[in-house]
């Protein structure tokens, strides 16, 4: 009697293990990326200058300050660093400066990305620049100097 007869009908089945592995890895990737993007970028309309002489994001470590806009008014809700939001005003800015100083103390080469809405009034942007400069001045590290990256949107048609 043949071996095929003994084993019965052939059952065709795909080995799904690698596919499930890859799919889970993709899910983990998207979960992590979506959380990072949500923390770093508050929804706003960034400035879009003409023929910008900008650079792409570097590999350096960075903190992101989002100046959370109040829609269409030029006013703001506050300054967001990481997951914390600081209200506009002296107390909020002092707390923001302390938090930035702690980050710069831990990593003197840290650069700070500043994201502000295109309609936000300059009177709310400049205190954030001041906070970074003051935080750098409080840190005793030799390399500690305020570095700010002003984030803008690059027009797709602009020359590189």
């Amino acid at each position, binding site marked *: 009697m043949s071996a095929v007869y003994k084993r019965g009908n052939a059952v065709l089945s795909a080995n799904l293990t690698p596919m499930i592995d890859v*799919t889970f890895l993709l899910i983990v990737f998207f979960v992590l990326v979506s959380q990072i993007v949500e923390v770093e970028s508050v929804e706003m309309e960034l400035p879009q200058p003409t023929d910008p002489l900008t650079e792409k994001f570097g590999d350096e470590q960075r903190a992101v300050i989002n100046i959370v806009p109040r829609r269409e008014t030029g006013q703001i809700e506050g300054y967001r660093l990481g997951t914390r939001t600081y209200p506009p005003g002296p107390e909020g800015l002092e707390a923001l400066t302390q938090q930035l100083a702690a980050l710069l103390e831990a990593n003197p080469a840290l650069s700070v990305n500043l994201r502000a809405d295109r309609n936000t009034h300059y*009177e709310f942007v*400049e205190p954030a620049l001041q906070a970074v400069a003051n935080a750098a*001045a409080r840190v005793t590290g030799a390399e500690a*100097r305020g570095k700010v990256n002003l*984030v803008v949107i690059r027009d*797709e048609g602009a020359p590189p």
Partner: protein
Amino acid sequence: MTPPGRTRDSGAESGSVSGSLSGGGAPESAATARVRRDRRRRTGGPVMQLNLTAMIDVVFLLLVYFMVATEFKVGEEVYRMDLPDRRQARQERDPFDLDEEPLRISVASNSFGPRPYRLSIDGPYPQPEDFDALYEFLRQRQINELTSGGLFAADHPVIIQPTRTTSWEHAIEAFNAAARARYTNVIFAQPQ
């Protein structure tokens, strides 16, 4: 009724045992015994399997959701700006250092007029109408091998002076004009 395979296997095993007892043939090797065990397992007995179909469905739904919902920061780029060192400001300055008078560019947003902004340069210079004119002014006044009659070195301090209500977009446009003209020492001043 006994299945034919089972009968054949058991018969072979009994033959093997009798053969080894009688000493008429070689003893069965471990590999041969393993082959027989595997064959027996394949031909009979229940096989326990996990049904993965539902899990794969859910996993794919999650994957599609995150792919659609994730929004990357497409097109975002940066201007790098070094802030003034506050510690140097507290130190005593050399009295024999010559100050370079910074080039101060004021920018204000307004809701009337032909343009939503107004530019002015401190000093006896032609006043630019728009950001392109500001860029041309800065480029032509720079000292380099391409221009004649330049006034300012590339590291000459340029101060962008917005008002309190200047929109960030217009402040950035003024900054961009100086950056495009290859000035390297451009900073923002406190609002007027």
